């Protein structure tokens, strides 16, 4: 199963490197959204809970772009059949796609965090970086799992670009809640404070619950 998942992740990363379809679009979208927020909020800089909110909302919507594209190659170029014909554990596809999405989100954040610091953030994020990275990792797991599920559900429908975000966004609200609450003290104007332990715990709980749920149901999406 690990070998299969690794093979699929490798194939997806190779495809993305070759076509550069998803990650650049997500990054560009995030940076543009920061600019839009500047004009929408009519502020030169944000800090504290406003900063956390702007950042996580932007990240979430940029993630939607990635989620929409996740299974498109499988659907349009026979990738599902190619995988289903192989003597492999079907759940490997879930693990692989979630891992790929996790990587895409991480690359997105590598660009979005500095862009955010440059364009909108008032305090410097660097002292808060370890905490921020930890939170991003936890949130990415949740977004990756739910994103893969929503994308897989939507790919067989007629209105797939619409359905995937409509499914994913409500499901990801707890992630936004926990992540924004957790990040707020890290982005305070006076310097980073402590993160309340409950929020990373909630993110962790969310990740575990949905990883298990996804593991249980994913097979049913693939069979016929």
């Amino acid at each position: 199963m690990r070998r299969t998942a690794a093979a699929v992740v490798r194939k997806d990363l190779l495809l993305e490197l070759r076509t550069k379809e998803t990650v650049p679009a997500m990054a560009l979208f995030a940076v543009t959204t920061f600019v839009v927020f500047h004009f929408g909020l009519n502020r030169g800089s944000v800090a504290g809970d406003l900063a956390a909110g702007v950042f996580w909302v932007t990240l979430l919507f940029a993630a939607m772009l990635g989620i929409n594209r996740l299974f498109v190659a499988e659907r349009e170029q026979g990738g599902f059949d190619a995988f289903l014909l192989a003597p492999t554990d079907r759940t490997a596809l879930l693990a692989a796609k979630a891992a790929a999405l996790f990587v895409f989100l991480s690359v997105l954040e590598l660009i979005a965090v500095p862009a955010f610091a440059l364009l909108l953030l008032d305090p410097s994020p660097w002292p808060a970086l370890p905490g921020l990275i930890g939170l991003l990792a936890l949130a990415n797991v949740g977004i990756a799992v739910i994103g893969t599920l929503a994308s897989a559900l939507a790919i067989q429908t007629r209105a797939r670009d619409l359905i995937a975000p409509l499914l994913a966004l409500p499901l990801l609200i707890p992630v936004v809640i926990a992540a924004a609450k957790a990040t707020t003290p890290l982005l305070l104007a006076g310097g980073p404070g402590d993160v309340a332990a409950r929020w990373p715990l909630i993110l962790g709980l969310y990740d575990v619950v949905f990883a298990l749920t996804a593991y249980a149901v994913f097979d049913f999406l693939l069979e016929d």
Partner: protein
Amino acid sequence: MYGKGLRALSLATTVVLTAAFALVFFYAPNDADQGFVQKIFYIHVPMAIVALCGFIAGGVMAIAHLRTRAQKWDMRSYVAIHLSLILGVGVLLTGAIWAKASWGHWWVWNEPTLVSFLIIFLLYACYQPLRFSIEDPERQARYASVFAVVAGAFVPLNFLAVRLAQAYTHPRVLGTTGGNLPGDMRFTFLVALAGMVLLFVTLWKYEMASKHATMQLRALRRKLAGEEEPVRATGRTAAPAATLHARPDTH
């Protein structure tokens, strides 16, 4: 099959609901702080509880569908979720009325139950569009069940997250739910809850019976017309179509 006991159930529902109605207006005392308008709580909270249980029941039935592939579980899950969604609208409306009467705003963000409900409503509102946009009926049922399971797992997590987010910012605005209800209010609440549960179950059975009957009628018509029976009835609706033929166990 579903019609059995429907009449008794309807009767019981009517009796209990009438009793609840009477209790609300003539027995339960007016709330000291909020006055008469607080009585909307006797509809709002039972509706919320029943709707949430309905969503989770829909998820459990969906699990049964995935495991047994029996069409009947998909139908049951669909009806449960669809009824809960309607109740959900009721929850949001009664919640808004209560908020307006108590606080002067049609919506408040510091009532975690209401906020959680909004999120859950937005999620389950995708259920029918999702079904409607998958054409193959078997796949439609399967995908709908996966959704119902994921959404069912989401309900408690969502409540937890929203509640924690509010915990230390505002006290409960539309309180008086939970343990510390005085005796007469508690009794009224329980009767109202019982009535709501009965209402849900009755409507559920009624809708199941109606769908089943439609199906049988369609099959009979086809037999009379001498047509070959299609193995599965379909239509461009979001509702699942149950089959009369027991699918052979291909496991």
